[in-house]
Each structure stands twice: as structure tokens, then as C-alpha cells.
């Protein structure tokens, strides 16, 4: 018999999940938003994304090749996802060298020193973005107006949240369809809310993410906004207009669906995910309403990232049959 016998412990079959499949699903889910961004801001969006992805992949490759000397993991696409998410958090007219520095920080400082994929404490893309925001505040906050027909430049390049911070927004009179479609200034990946939600649905269907974190983040933000609105006694209409504004403006959806759900930096149990999501939602709203910055999603995610090991330690899944 020419058979070669293989022996292994059970189980002897494996599902179709793989790291590469998960990462490529995330990339696929981000594509509709990229298409909208290109339509709204022009080819610059694609250029920034390409530069970011290429530099993230390149830095990871170089670090593994020459510094850490571990097995190469760039082919699992995780660096590409980091690159894409980092780019989505940048204004479209950002100088490309800044993008490269952001990628270097994300990969070289936040991801690889901790041991690479699966071991980093903070979300590399967000940490990269926050680093750039602090290092290059001017370039990072000058958002160009969309170059799309029909866009009314009401806020002269200020994002809706920045305008709201300045007290220049009439919440009852903003353009909801325009915000859904992405016709607002902002980081080029965060504006296309509808496309991002579409990608989110794809991720849910493919079982890449679960509903817990996005729903907890967005739900908390909405509830927070309703309570604030109630306290301010602004009338019934504001009870839905104000939360809706906060969900559509800024990076709420991008953060809740794509950034907060990053596997490595989010909790392992459903209960933990809910705690984590509520924390992100609440901190985001606190920063947005009373903080220095108009947008707080990135900071909220980073802060909650640091709590994740604690959550994992104390929030355990409910054991079967345990009382």
C-alpha cells in the first residue's frame, strides 16, 4: 500500500475561517466607502490610501526582515488593513510624507514592538492617526470641501462637528441625505456613512464581526445625545435630530464598525464587548460636547483599548450550567 498515514488529535476538520479571509473581508467592506470618497474628493483619496497601505506593508516587512527577524506575516493582509484604516482617518489633501510618518508610527511603534499581529495593546491605525493629529495639527485639521456637484459649502471647510463646536450648526436644518451620502468635509474615509454601513452589513453577514461593539458604541452615543437634549429642553424634534447628527457627523460609524471592532484591541467576550462599546460611546460624546477637540472617537477608542486587558481578566463568559 502506497498510503502515507497521517495522525493528529481531533478535531480533524477545519472551518473556512482564516486570518487572510478575515482581513480581505475587511478590505472588501471598506471599498464602497473608498469609491464614494473618490467621487467626493477626487483621486487624491485613492492616492493617500495607496501610499498608506504600501508604507504600512513595507514597514512591517522591513521590520520583520531586519529587526525582529520573525516569520513574515505581511501576507496575512493585516498591515494592509491597518494602512487602509489609517488613510481613511486622514484629510484628502494631507502631504504624503505625513502619511508615511503615520504608517511608520502605527506599524513601527504601536504594532511591531509588542510582537506584531495579535499582541499590540492599541489599535495601530488609530494610534497613528492620533499621533499625526498631535504632531501635525494644522495639516490634520484643514479639511477640503467636497468637490462634488450640489454640495453647498455652508461651513467653509469645517467639519460638521467642528462647526457644532463653534456653535454654528442649526441641528434642525442640516442635510441628512447629504451626510449619509458623504457630501461633507472630513477625513475622507469617515464621511460616506451609508457606504460604511453597507460594508458593516457585509462584515456581519460574513461573521467577521458581531453586532455587540457597533451597537453598543452607536447606541450609547444616541442615548447620550438624547439625554443631553432632554436636559437642554430643546423640544421634541431635537430628541431625534440631535442624536442623528452625532451618529452621522464625524467618525462615529467608521470608528464603531471598523476601528473599535479590531480583534486584537477589543475584548474577548460579548459582555466585555458591550462594556467596551458603551465606554467608547460615552467617552466620545464627553469629548465632543465638553472636550477641546470637536471629535473624540479616536481618543475614546485608545482609552478603552487600554482597559481591554482588565475587561478580559474580569469579564468571563457565563459558564454552561454554572450558578
Amino acid at each position: 500500500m502506497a498510503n502515507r498515514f497521517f495522525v493528529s488529535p481531533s478535531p480533524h476538520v477545519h472551518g473556512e475561517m482564516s486570518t487572510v479571509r478575515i482581513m480581505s473581508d475587511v478590505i472588501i467592506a471598506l471599498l464602497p466607502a473608498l469609491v464614494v470618497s473618490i467621487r467626493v474628493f477626487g483621486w487624491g483619496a485613492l492616492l493617500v490610501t495607496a501610499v498608506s497601505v504600501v508604507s504600512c506593508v513595507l514597514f512591517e516587512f522591513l521590520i520583520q526582515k531586519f529587526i525582529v527577524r520573525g516569520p513574515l506575516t505581511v501576507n496575512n493582509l493585516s498591515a494592509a488593513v491597518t494602512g487602509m484604516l489609517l488613510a481613511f482617518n486622514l484629510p484628502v489633501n494631507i502631504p504624503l510624507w505625513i502619511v508615511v510618518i503615520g504608517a511608520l508610527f502605527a506599524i513601527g511603534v504601536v504594532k511591531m514592538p509588542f510582537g506584531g499581529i495579535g499582541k499590540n495593546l492599541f489599535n495601530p491605525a488609530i494610534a497613528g492617526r492620533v499621533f499625526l493629529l498631535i504632531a501635525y495639527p494644522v495639516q490634520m485639521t484643514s479639511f477640503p470641501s467636497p468637490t462634488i456637484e450640489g454640495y453647498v459649502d455652508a461651513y467653509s471647510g469645517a467639519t460638521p462637528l467642528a462647526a457644532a463646536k463653534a456653535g454654528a450648526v442649526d441641528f434642525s436644518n442640516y442635510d441628512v441625505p447629504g451626510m449619509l451620502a458623504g457630501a461633507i468635509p472630513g477625513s475622507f474615509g469617515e464621511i460616506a456613512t451609508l457606504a460604511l454601513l453597507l460594508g458593516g452589513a457585509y462584515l456581519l453577514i460574513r461573521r467577521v464581526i458581531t453586532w455587540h461593539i457597533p451597537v453598543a458604541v452607536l447606541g450609547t452615543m444616541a442615548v447620550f445625545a438624547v439625554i443631553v437634549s432632554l436636559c437642554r429642553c430643546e423640544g421634541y424634534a431635537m430628541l431625534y435630530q440631535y442624536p442623528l447628527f452625532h451618529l452621522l457627523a464625524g467618525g462615529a460609524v467608521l470608528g464603531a464598525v471598523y476601528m473599535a471592532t479590531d480583534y486584537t484591541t477589543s475584548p474577548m467576550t460579548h459582555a466585555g464587548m458591550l462594556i467596551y462599546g458603551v465606554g467608547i460611546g460615552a467617552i466620545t460624546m464627553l469629548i465632543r460636547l465638553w472636550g477641546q477637540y470637536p471629535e473624540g472617537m479616536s481618543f475614546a477608542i485608545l482609552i478603552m483599548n487600554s482597559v481591554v486587558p482588565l475587561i478580559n481578566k474580569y469579564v468571563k463568559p457565563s459558564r454552561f450550567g454554572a450558578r
Partner: protein
Amino acid sequence: MMRTFPIGGVHPSDNKKWSSNSAIEQMDLPDVVNVPLSQHIGAPATPKVAKGDKVRVGDLIAEATGFMSANIHAPVSGTVTAVDMQPNGQGLRQMMITIRREGDEWAEGIDRSDTIVENCELTSREIIDRIKAAGIVGMGGATFPTHVKLSIPDGKHAEALIINGVECEPYLTSDYRTMLERGRELIIGTKILMRAVNVGKAYIGVESNKPDAIKHLRSLLDGTEGISVVKLKTKYPQGGEKQLIAAVLGLRVPPPPALPIDVGAVVCNASTAVAVYEAVQKNKPLVERVVTVTGKHMREPKNLLARFGTPVEALVAKCGGLPEGDVRVLNGGPMMGRPLVNLGMPVMKGCSGIVVMSGADALRGRESACIKCAKCVEACPMGLEPYLLSKLSRRKDWESVERGDVVSCIECGSCQYTCPANIPLLDYIRLGKQTVMGIIRTRNAKK
């Protein structure tokens, strides 16, 4: 609304199509059989025959050693040629009785006719004694002696009987064919088991991917008091004892050392129920069973009724032989089955199937870094944290492994099945469980 267990679970492709339509076929009698003395959980049986003895089919050749053990009967008639150590399917040597077959002569008092005997007026004690005498063990693969399971300890009492016709393991179809072809016997067996544990309610749990079995059993049951067929969602491990109880009765068995009887449930496999019928009504000891021989590249997958001791090699040959190239041959299903190092292994009481994985399926994917995706936590039907248990086990931090409730693990393999990084989670968790259980045993012994 289909019922299912509350947490975790995975959906492997069931791959039952290859053998589900082939009717049970009688396997040719082998010329020589090796009958292991340990075909069940508990102490190996004590041999009652010596070299040179003549035996008939159904003669007791090895007797249960103590309560937690099971009788073993001659599966063929002929001469005992050796009582010796022989390699088993894992290549390890264990005691086996070797019999050279001469004809097919059965012991007296065994009713081999097809007539169905409906009525049973025996008491609980008498039924359990007959089951014990016949050497019946759980035939789903766990091989827990059935008389032990049916002997309900003082102070506890059974509320309901559940017949496990789930067969959630992919590939396997032996229980399915048994339910279709031996449905009436199965139902009588169920009634006998109800008498044995003194309950008025019985449920036959079947997964939704076997609609004809559900239909068939329901039509046979038509109007029978107390027994109902429960359609369960197709989800692995629906047939796990604790999962099945949760799905059917909505009760959760507490963590070990608690047993199903603590929530008033007794679970028996469907094939076991048929064996119980044969033992109690026809006086036939357990000498044969249905074995599914299947695999993606097997030429003729079949469900074979084989005598114990028949070498797996003969079964595989009957089904067209092994496919060329790389193979991984399993005793049992692909989720929990044990691998074989050669085809010399004899068919045993718990051998529900021989699955041949071939080509690329014989190998495993390459392990990569854990990405903390939490899919293993989501998939665990026992609410454990496989990623953590596996990591701690690898570090030999047995205290933390124990604190992580590793003893609750049912080794279903859902975590490893779902892991995108191909980490051998269960390999290490099983090691941790074995070590921790050893530590607990020594600790209890010291007390």
C-alpha cells in the same frame, strides 16, 4: 421554532450524503477476530476463556470487573487462539482475545428471528440486569456502561429519558440508518428504558438534517403516550449530552462532578436503545454494530453491520479500499474521532464509523499567531475561554488552567474548528484537562 442548545456551537458541513442512502449491509464474517477486553470506559473486563477453548457466538468470554465495567461476548464461533497483548488502533498494546472462526454457531436461548416482540413486563431491576449481562455500553462513541447509567443513585430520581438520535458528527450515518431501518425496535427499546429508569416521558432528539428519520419515527409513534420526537437545529455539538439536555428539556447540567441525573435526565444513544431491545426482548448480547465507512474519496461508502473484532481493513476493503496517497483514518467522526495508525484495529462497541480523510484533508493547516478574534470563545458550547486555556496549558500553568474551569471542557473541538489562525487549541486544552484531572484526583485521594 427548532430547539437547540443555548451557547456556542459551529456548523461544519455534514457530508453525510455519501453514505446516508446506503442501507445497512451485513459485513462478511472475518476468519480471525481480535476482541479487546477494554471496549468501554472503566476497568477492562476479566477474560473467562483460555487458549484452545471453543466458543459460540454470544458466549461470555470476558466478565465485567466490578461495577464500572462491561461484559464481553464472543462475536464469532470458533477456537480461542490467544489471550494476549495486541496493538490497538493507536498502536498501543492492550489485552485482546483472539478467536479463529469456525462456522457461525450461536449460543442457545438467543432469538435471532426478525419477529418483533412488543411487550415487556419486567421490573426495572430485571431490565438493568439483562442489559448488564448483555454488555451494553453507550454506542455513540463514549462507551459508558449502560447499566451504570440506568442505575440511579439513591436520593436522585429521573424525570425524563432522552434518546440521542442527533448524530451531530459530520460524515456518520450509522444512527440515521438505524433509526430508519430499526425504528420499531428503537421505540420498543425506548419503552424498556423508560421502565428501567421509571419515567413517564421520553424524547427522541433528531437533528433537522434528517427529516426522513423524524417523519418515520413520528409515523411509527402515532398515538404512543409519553414518547415524542424533538426536531433539533442542525448545529454541532447538538448531540453532546449536556447540550442535548439543554435543547430538549431546557435544563443545564451544572459543571463536573455533577451528572445529567442531577437535573433528572437520562440520555441514551439511538443505537443503544436498539441494542437494549435485542438484549431484553431477544436475549441477544452485544456482538455486532452498524459502522459507517465513508470518506470523500472512498469508492463505495457503506453502513456495515459488523461483528466486533472484525479488522477495519476488511471493512475498508469491502468499501473499495483506501484512496491513493495521503490518508488520515479515523475511528469515529471528524470532530471527535480518534486517529488510527494502521487498519489492523478491530471493530469495537464504540466504533460508530470509520472516516477516511484523504489528500489535502489528511493534513492540518499551518498555525499562525492568535489574532484575539474571540471566535473560539463564541464557539465554545460550555462557555469557556479556549484561547486562554490553551495558552496557559502550553505554559504548564496548571493552577490557572484549573481556575479556567477546564474540567467542564467536553473536547468537542468547536474552538479549534473555528480558529482562523489554525491554532491547535484543543490539543493543548485536552492536555491541560488531563493534567488538571490528575491533580484533582491526587488531591482528593490525599483528603
